[in-house]
């Protein structure tokens, strides 16, 4: 009796499974994901669409539906401040990406040599990450002060003609921001890389040693390719930090001297809140979003289409 019942149930289930449309598969998991999907749709997509729509209006402090076409964009691209901001974020982006990855990786490799006091060093390198960008900015403002900071220390040592005034230089102020950003963020990159290095199987090291491959070649040709997922995670974290960098520049240079270290996020903030020009601010933020999408979409396409092929094959 129970045998027949379970047999029938089996058949029922099988046909039920077969008839079930694709969308209802893993139903409970999908239901569980619904709140997140709703938040993403309303919070990210919805608000982005709202921003884009109002970037075509002449809204001042409050959103109003008086559409003016591409006027805000015309003004944005004519603005020398915006041009400087875009150049600066490019310099900041390239430098902080390259240097934080290289320095972070080298530090991790150095710590991975089974040295003494590893914990102490790790704590020292990671400590700046515990500080906010505002504090980081203030600390470096003092350190780089031309009269009292590092410059004075070096003068006291004996180099009486030493001058260090990058904070008041139009050309180099952005590099002060990069230095402070690296000081704050590199330790975190190092921690991620160290975790990646510790995840490499020790047998690989033994094998490469047996074959007599020098350590640096093992790192470059074997270990780094194996750490691809760690690198991608790190890249995403650094990249999102680059786009939204704001508080660091506010605390360190306030965009100065004379607007030479302005960044896009600060442009948006200033126009939205300080200058009561919502339309202009949203036009700038729409351009920021578009730029991110232009970089992100081909990458995501490449990444996910590869995975599909792999799983299909």
């Amino acid at each position, binding site marked *: 009796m129970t045998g027949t019942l379970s047999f029938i149930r089996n058949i029922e289930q099988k046909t039920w499974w077969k008839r079930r449309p694709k969308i209802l598969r893993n139903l409970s998991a999908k239901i569980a994901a619904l709140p997140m999907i709703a938040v993403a749709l309303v919070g990210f997509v919805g608000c982005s669409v709202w921003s884009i729509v109002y970037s075509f209006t002449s809204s*001042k*402090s*409050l959103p109003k539906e008086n559409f003016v076409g591409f006027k805000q964009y015309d003004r944005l691209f004519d603005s*020398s*401040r915006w041009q400087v901001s875009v150049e600066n974020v490019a310099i900041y982006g390239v430098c902080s990406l390259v240097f934080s990855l290289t320095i972070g990786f080298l530090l991790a490799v150095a710590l991975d040599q089974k040295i003494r006091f590893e914990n102490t060093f790790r704590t020292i390198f990671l400590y700046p990450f515990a500080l906010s960008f505002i504090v980081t900015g203030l600390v470096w403002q003092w350190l780089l*002060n*031309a*009269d009292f900071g590092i410059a004075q220390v070096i003068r006291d040592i004996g180099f009486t003609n030493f*001058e260090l*005034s990058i*904070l*008041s230089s*139009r050309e180099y102020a952005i590099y002060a921001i990069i230095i402070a950003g690296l000081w704050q963020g590199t330790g975190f990159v190092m921690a991620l890389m160290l975790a990646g290095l510790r995840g490499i199987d020790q047998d690989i090291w033994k094998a490469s040693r047996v074959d007599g491959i020098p350590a640096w070649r093992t790192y470059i040709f074997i270990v780094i390719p194996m750490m691809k997922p760690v690198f991608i995670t790190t890249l995403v974290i650094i990249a999102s930090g680059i786009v939204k960098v704001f508080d660091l520049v506010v605390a360190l240079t*306030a965009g*100065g*001297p*004379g*607007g*030479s270290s302005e960044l896009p996020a600060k442009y948006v*903030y*200033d*126009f*939205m*809140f*300080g*200058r*009561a*020009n919502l339309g*202009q601010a949203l036009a700038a933020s729409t351009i920021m979003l578009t730029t991110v999408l232009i970089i992100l979409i081909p990458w995501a396409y490449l990444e996910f289409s590869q995975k599909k092929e792999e799983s299909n094959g």
Partner: protein
Amino acid sequence: MKLKQNMVATVIAAASFGLASSVSATELEVTHWWTSGGEAAAVKVFADAFNAGGDTWKDGAIAGSGGVARPVIISRIIGGDPMGATQLNHGRQAEELVEEGLMLDLTELAEKEGWKDIVRPSSLLDACTLDGKIYCVPVNIHSFQWMWTSLQAYEKAGIEPPKDWNEFVASAPKLREAGITPLAVGAQTWQTNGMFGVIRMGLGGIDLFRKTTIDRDSEALRGEEMVAIWKAFGDARDLDDPENSIQNWNDATSQVINGSHGAQIMGDWAQGEFQVAGQTAGTEYDCLPGLGLAPALDTGGDAFYFPNQDDPEKTEAQLRMASMMISKPVQVDFNLKKGSLPVRGDVDLDAANDCMKKGLEILKDPANIVPGGDQLFSPDAQGQMEDLLAEFWTNPDMSPEEAHDAWATIIEEAE
């Protein structure tokens, strides 16, 4: 009994406002950006007077001057978390908030107390008025057209202190020889913009100022006189220390106070700093209104707005505060501390120092008065000018012609 209770409330209000349990006592949070030494002393006058009336002043000072504080204040009001009262520069900063009905209408109180008759110059009250209704209380008159010179610095250089801008420029090489930087300038962008306005008024005179900023006449904006002013302003860049890394205006004022710099062009709020440092006009420092060339002052200033509240008791307290701020004794005390001029023409200012007296003398003639930048331009246009002037000041490669053209365009296109 009641009096005693109020006194207790006043004394411990700052530490624990919960103890002020009197029925009529209402707590109002007041936001402002008055944080320098002289400013903080002035705020205390307001707070003490309000607390003495039985209510509680909850101080919400926001550091970092108007550029930082205004966004915080405005987004709180728009975001539905209004404070009891807030400082703003009257003029166009709060225009839209008033239009949206977010601010308390003070017309009834103003009529009862006759503000129209006592506020001088009347343009201050006009800046608070929209469609015939009054929405803010002007509390002081500030003008930017002042140059502060350090007499110590000139003594050290062994030359006569200048009587006007031209003499100052001529004295600059001697100051340099004595190791003194002629001009102290903070890096905040509004300072450069303001300084340009002062030089424009000084060298071009009040008529040109009116033509360019009030009438916005293209011919005047791009005319010969303006070309000369831009050139003079371009030359003035050499008076500043190129490695200057000072941000705040009061830090630049300190440089004049300690004599390491010759002079600063800054509004009369700088005077409060000289007072806090224990210096007196004529002995340690001197003041040149209108750069010693054009006796004209703009009448910008601070005003308090009262965002609408749901609680009628708070509304009552807001009206009490508005009335207190414009009352005679508070006006005198407050403005003496702050170094600004009172908005009432009918108060006794014997205690005023020489510089304030010079200012009052100039204000007596309405022909010498122009509206302040915040009353003339939207924050958007002001911001564009600040960006331009700050870039010009720090970038020696930017020619005066280039900056002049960009500046004229901003004013022509401004709303």
